[in-house]
């Protein structure tokens, strides 16, 4: 399916964060379409549908009800049709444990939610601009966590 926009999915149970997220993309003036889900189960139900449109980038919060981000990540990477989705972990914390776990499971980048809206916009624009093919090849533990 051809499309002239970047399709972005955000899975996050926090409404405020969804608001910041969509606002940031609105202000960024990049041709994007943002779809959001309130928990992991909702996200996986959508992705598992036969005709589901696969996102260019999936932003995945870790701490979600019903199905955690880690569970979603593992399922996505285990599925043939979804395994190519670029996954950006989008979490409040950046504990070593979480970083290690998600890296091993095959996430593409780890973003610690910024506490400044300007910074948020910067981070999102950068992530959207990433050439995933190139990024994934050069991925290692040190550049996995996005630093600004």
């Amino acid at each position: 399916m051809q499309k002239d926009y970047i399709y972005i999915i955000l899975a996050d149970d926090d409404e405020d964060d969804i608001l910041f997220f969509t606002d940031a993309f609105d202000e960024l003036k990049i041709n994007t379409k943002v779809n959001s889900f309130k928990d992991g189960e909702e996200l996986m139900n959508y992705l598992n549908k036969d005709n589901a449109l696969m996102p260019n980038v999936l932003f995945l919060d870790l701490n979600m009800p019903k199905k955690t981000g880690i569970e979603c990540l593992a399922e996505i990477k285990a599925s043939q049709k979804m395994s190519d989705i670029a996954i950006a972990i989008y979490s409040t914390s950046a504990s070593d444990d979480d970083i290690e776990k998600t890296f091993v499971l095959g996430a593409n980048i780890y973003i610690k939610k910024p506490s400044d809206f300007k910074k948020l916009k910067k981070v999102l624009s950068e992530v959207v601009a990433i050439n995933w093919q190139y990024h994934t090849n050069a991925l290692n533990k040190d550049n996995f966590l996005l630093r600004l």
Partner: protein
Amino acid sequence: MIMNNWFKSTLFLKIILLLSLFVILVIGGLTFRHISNLTSSTEVVVKTYKVNLELEQIISYLRDAESGYRNYIVTKDTFYIESYLNAHKKVNNSFLNLRNLIKVNSEQQENLKILNKLTDSLFSSFAESKVFVKNDETNTETFKTLFFKEKVIIDSIRRQSMVMFQLENKLLNERQKEFQSDLKFTPLFFYVVLLIMLLLIIIAYTKISNDLKNIKAKNDQLLIFKESTNQSEIIGKHGNWVWHIDSDKYVYSDNLYRLLGEEPQSFEATFDNFLKFVHPDDVDKFAEELDKMIDEEELPFTNYRIIQKNGSIKYLKAFAKSFYGDDGQKILLGNTSDVTDEIENILTLEEQNLELEQNNKELSAFNYAASHDLQEPLRKILTFISRLEEKESDKFSDTGQQYLEHIKAAASRMRLLIDDLLQFSRTNKPDKEFVNADLNELFENAKQDLTEIISEKKAQIKIATLPKATVIDFQIQQLFLNLLSNSLKYSKEETAPIIKIYYSKVEADKEPSLYKAPQSHYHKITFTDNGIGFDQKYAKKIFDLFNRLHNKQDYSGTGIGLSICKKIIQNHKGFIFANGEINVGSVFTIYLPVN
């Protein structure tokens, strides 16, 4: 040593015994010889007298024969011939006796033969002349010659018997002399031998009594030793046992019975009897370990439980060593101690430790969760503030603007605090992995994180070449980061910060501040700055949690950074010291153990 003496002493006594036996044998032999000498001497004397008697008898018989013969010549009465013939028979008898008596003496035998010949020739001459008497031809010349010849023969017989008599006397004299000299030395000899015997007996007696005295002293010592062993067994709650493996005999010390809760020696010391006390769960293990002890000379301690008759369970620890006794028998010598108190203490301690660990974990988890969960609302507050500032600031009054600024400052500070607390609780986490890391690299990483503030403050950082060391890498990086940011934070307003880092490897003995150090060598890294410094009296306090020397309006510290440093250094079993002088600068010295 004792064995050696003992051995010497027995050897000595054996020698004395052998000597005594030898002396007694010698005395017996000599006495026997003397007595038999005496007997033979007496026999010789008797024999000599017998010889002399026989000789004298021969002479006397001859005389009888001669007188009978003469009477016959004068009277021509045949009655005299009878006595003459009788005499002849008796002479022959005496010859036989004599021959027996002088069997051993060849010289006398020769003499006897001569005598015999003489008597024979005398009797044949008598017989010849008898014919003349019968025919009454006594006046003939032939008879007279014959008669004269007889007289000559008789004289010869007398002489010959005299010779024999003298020879026999001479022999007797010689023997008596010999016998006399033997008799003279015998008492002296016996006396000397008896003296030697007496001496030997005295020596043996003193030796034996000395040995006995020694043995008694040793026995006393042994008794004392046994008593003290008993005491120490009771006090130390241990007992010993001996197992003569080949004969399968056991000996248990009194206290071993007490350990089992029994009266000393109240039951027979056997394996089966002991096994009755062993906890059912430990029986197999116990028997197995005992088997191993037989084969191997030394084994680590065996721990097992026993159940006393009153039901109380005791923990015992046994150790045994096998060796061969003097008689080549294999012996297992064991020591068993009651470690119930120890085990119970350890169990209590372990329990307490576990509890403490649990508490610590909970505290750490709480700290982490609290800091972590606090971050989320705070982040939102900050993001909303940034949105407010961006979009709505022109709608605020000046006061409102000011309030907003204060809200922002307070929230930022809270964020800083939470970050630091999170960091602090992370240094408390138990999963610390030591790796061999290049400290230069860790320092560069730390410096990288501070690029912004370094360029902003135009700070100069001069660093010596650091070594490689076995450390928890992310913690050391954090340590460098905290020390650097501390120096940058507390710099003088008008002066660009100059931070110098020195390195040397030092011996603990040569560093006065390391007098308590357990290691011999340390990496010494010194951070010096030209900042505002601090009063030396706070040198220890600045490492305490939430301790701040300056107000938060001027300096943004949370009072956690240096506590984290201290924690990290403690995790590495190192040391950290601070030296400060107000308005001159601070020196932070860290010591990390080499390896």
